[in-house]
């Protein structure tokens, strides 16, 4: 049945796009303009195939499922500006040596720059 497969693909894409937030099953079938029966069948099928994870959630007094993608497209964004990525001292970096992630100033600066963006100030309050 091509329609079912199309819908499955669309649903999977939609779930992947929600990332770590996931999406409520009820929301999904409304977005896809499918019936609740179709929606839950698709969710079950995707779970069977190991593509998504379902977690029970109480919403407005009713039990529904939140659907999460099992694998997200790999992205380097979270560490792209981390100094460890290109650090020339990497082979010598160890907690027991002079070059250590405990005291590395480059790492401190990176953490402080994130702190600054997140809290709008230096971490030295």
């Amino acid at each position, binding site marked *: 049945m091509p329609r079912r497969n199309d819908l499955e693909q669309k649903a999977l894409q939609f779930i992947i796009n929600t990332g*770590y937030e996931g999406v409520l099953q009820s929301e999904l079938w409304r977005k896809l303009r499918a019936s609740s029966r179709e929606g839950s069948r698709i969710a079950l099928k995707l779970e069977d195939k190991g593509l998504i994870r379902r977690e029970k959630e109480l919403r407005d007094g009713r039990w529904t499922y939140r659907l999460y993608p099992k*694998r*997200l*497209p*790999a*992205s*380097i*964004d*979270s*560490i*792209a*500006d*981390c100094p*460890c*990525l*290109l650090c020339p001292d990497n082979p010598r*970096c160890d*907690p027991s040596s002079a070059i*250590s*992630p*405990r*005291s*590395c*100033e480059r*790492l*401190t600066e990176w*953490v*402080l720059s*994130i*702190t600054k963006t*997140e*809290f709008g*100030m230096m*971490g*030295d*309050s």
Partner: protein
Amino acid sequence: MLSNIDDATLVRVAEALGDEEAVKLIEILKNSDETTDDEIANKTGIRLNSVRKILYKLYDHSLVSLRRTRDPKTGWFIFHWRLQPDQLEGFILSQKRRVLEKLNIRLQYEKNHDFYYCYTPGCRRIPFEDALEIVFRCPTCGKSIMHYENDKILQTLTKKVEQLRKELGE
């Protein structure tokens, strides 16, 4: 072509590993099946030694593969390079694991230590044990050092560690 990775991610990795030159180089590799360092240098205008430097860096991370043939006229080796996009996901995951390990070490250290600081830009924070030995004077600028509240650093580290764990599915 790329299973779970899009072209934008490829460019982001090139940026993280190198600079604009690495991005240009990746563009050429992406659009050709196999190419030589000479061709890349001609097409991008990047100096041949820089091209090779970037290629070797990518090769170190298995992001490109290498085939060697001999030039029948000169007898010199010709290197043929090919992008290995299927290795990209593995590369990203292993880098994240490495960063996560380091951040965990730092998080534990920050949790278990009290820090003292002279609040002069460019000077280091000193853990209490060391501060005691240097009688609370900054070894760099000589000013007296005061207690440094590291709770924001702790929050940032905890958040980052959690984010990376989530992304790695741990």
